[in-house]
């Protein structure tokens, strides 16, 4: 394991952005939180700040100061949902994400920096992606999650990777940034201890006695002297929904129509989490009969309803239903992150790749994968081994040498000979000198043949050979179509 690198994403305007993503608003607006006694302001927009409001004020004081103040109540549940959505979106950058901080995310990015052109490149991608959907962010990085978080929280944007640099930076941060009770911070302040550096300069046992072990632990976690395991974010792992028919259904069209509704729901969930599925199962339930499960396998993860319906249509076409359908259930158990379209450099190429995938998927579903092949070249002198079937798109090419026929007969077809001359649908006239191919003695499939181009009926040109190992019998091996 190499060294870790954590990138913290801090949303300074988070409570406001819950209500107005990206639109600043010209009227003064504050978000307030009820807690303890009076409701207090936790965030204000620019207009509110210009009117002299600031976080921490009571709502009643603010209302006395500004007419027509727009007050919104903080919605913790909504904030949590949004954080999960953003984390799901950020899965495209790294699978190691922690949501264990308020108003932010922690991403462990050491494994995926290369893909995004380094730390700066990735930070730029993340910033652009989030700003596009209406979030202002502050980004900072450090080898420990807590140091990255403290730096971003302090309003500094520093992409640091070196532990010593991080420590130097942390030492300058004010104590108030720590996750410690206000009483502790105030007490230290009274002693003239204002920055983390000041605090680190104090004797440890004294600090522990006076302010508790938690303060030292927090500093140690930030500096990497204590491990800081983080609960990782996991995207929702499955989708399940069912649909009952008012009357029994036989027709594929009606089934497809109903299935479409389930697929749209699935698509909504996937969209929200920037995810896709590669497999899902539609189970048809009948009365007095076992259920019919239809597996919908896709060539690549998707959330495209049309693609899923296309595969389902083929599956329904192949399946014989034992009885009419009373209800259906759609289950998608493995949901995988899907790269959002807008990060693609070549949208056209991507779209083409996707239609290609859909096309292959459709053929494979109906015809079976063995019916769909690519063909490639092999470096072998034996004509029947100079090619082979490969997965579509995986073909290898070798420069073509001597003239070869476009069609190969596999296996070669034994043809008659009359007076030593080959005969196939009529006598054949040899049009070229012989090409001797003798190869493969080492693997037991050796050949020794003399190949000719021959002309036959209606001027057709054929590739024939005489087998030197088999009484000079004639074979047809190719056709120059």
């Amino acid at each position, binding site marked *: 394991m190499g060294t870790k690198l954590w990138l913290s994403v801090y949303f300074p305007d988070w409570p406001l952005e819950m209500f107005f993503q990206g639109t600043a608003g010209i009227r003064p607006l504050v978000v307030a939180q009820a807690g303890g006694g009076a409701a207090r302001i936790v965030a204000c927009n620019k207009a509110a700040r210009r009117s002299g409001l600031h976080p921490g004020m009571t709502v009643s004081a603010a209302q006395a100061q500004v007419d027509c103040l727009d007050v919104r109540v903080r919605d913790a549940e909504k904030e949590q949902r949004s954080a999960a959505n953003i984390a799901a979106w950020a899965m495209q950058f790294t699978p190691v994400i922690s949501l264990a901080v308020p108003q932010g995310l922690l991403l462990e990015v050491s494994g995926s920096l290369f893909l995004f052109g380094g730390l700066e490149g990735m930070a730029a991608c993340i910033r652009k992606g989030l700003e596009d959907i209406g979030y202002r962010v502050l980004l900072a990085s450090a080898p420990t999650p807590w140091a990255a978080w403290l730096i971003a929280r302090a309003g500094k944007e520093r992409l640091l990777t070196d532990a010593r640099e991080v420590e130097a930076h942390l030492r300058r941060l004010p104590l108030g940034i720590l996750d410690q009770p206000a009483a502790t911070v105030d007490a230290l302040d009274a002693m003239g201890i204002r920055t983390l550096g000041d605090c680190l300069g104090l004797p440890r046992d004294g600090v522990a006695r006076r302010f508790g072990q938690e303060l030292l632990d927090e500093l140690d976690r930030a500096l990497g002297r204590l491990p800081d395991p983080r609960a990782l974010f996991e995207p929702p792992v499955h989708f399940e929904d069912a649909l009952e028919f008012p009357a029994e259904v036989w027709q594929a069209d009606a089934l497809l129509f109903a299935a479409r509704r389930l697929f749209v729901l699935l698509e909504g969930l996937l969209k929200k989490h920037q995810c896709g599925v590669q497999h899902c199962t539609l189970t048809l339930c009948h009365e007095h009969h076992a259920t019919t499960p239809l597996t919908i396998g896709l060539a690549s993860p998707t959330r495209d309803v049309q693609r899923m319906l296309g595969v389902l249509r083929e599956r329904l076409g192949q399946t014989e239903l034992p009885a009419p359908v009373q209800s259906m259930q759609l289950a998608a158990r493995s949901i995988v992150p899907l790269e959002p379209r807008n990060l693609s450099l070549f949208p056209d190429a991507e779209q083409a790749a996707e239609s290609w995938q859909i096309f292959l998927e459709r053929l494979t579903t109906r015809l079976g994968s063995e019916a769909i*092949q690519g063909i490639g070249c092999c470096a072998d002198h034996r004509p029947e081994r100079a090619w082979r079937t490969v997965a579509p798109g995986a073909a290898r090419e070798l420069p073509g040498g001597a003239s070869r026929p476009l069609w190969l007969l596999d296996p070669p077809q034994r043809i008659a000979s009359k007076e030593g001359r080959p005969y196939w649908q009529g006598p054949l006239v040899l049009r070229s000198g012989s090409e001797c191919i003798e190869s493969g003695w080492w693997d037991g499939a050796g050949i020794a043949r003399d190949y000719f181009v021959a002309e036959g009926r209606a001027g057709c*040109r054929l590739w024939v050979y005489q087998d030197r190992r088999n009484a000079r019998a004639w074979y047809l091996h190719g056709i120059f179509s």
Partner: protein
Amino acid sequence: MGNVGALLQNPAIWRGDQCARQLPGISSGFPELDAILPGGGWPQGALTEILFEQEGIGELQLVMPALARLSTAGHGLAWIAPPHVPYAPALTAFHIRLSRLLVVRPKEDRERLWAAEQALRCGVCKGVLVWADGEDGQRLRRLQVAAGEGGGWGILYRPLRAAAMPSPAVLRLSVERAGGGLRVHVLKRRGSAVAPIHLDLSLRVAS
């Protein structure tokens, strides 16, 4: 409404907007042939039918230069139900990019046209060859429609005896060996009738 829709599927009916976005032809690589093909080459977004009596006379070489051009431009090629193995060393000699080539061998004959329809419709395969012996015009009609949707070039290989049957293809050629080359008869094209032409294949045989 459904009836009108079905009626408009008929490739014999031309609609104004279709004329307007008529795609230019794909150069066949044979100047003599391009000269007599409407659009200056093989028709895109439509079916071409090639009829022949005897295989091995150059019926595939006829389309190779255009297929090579499509594949090197990054388009997909699909060969559906070929009668033999398309031989990789010869294909590369004709400058076909093998990584763009897909060979589809349905187990049952009735799946051939379905696969061809999918290939034409998907829009990624710009050259779709299908060997469709014994298929009737009604089923082939769907291919012409799919080609119109996907914008690709559909090539239908059929035996010469099918010449007497109606075909939805916009271009129908029959080919035969003559001298060192190929004699091409245009049975049907958009435009007036034209005399047979002779193509010299030896110039384009793999080097």
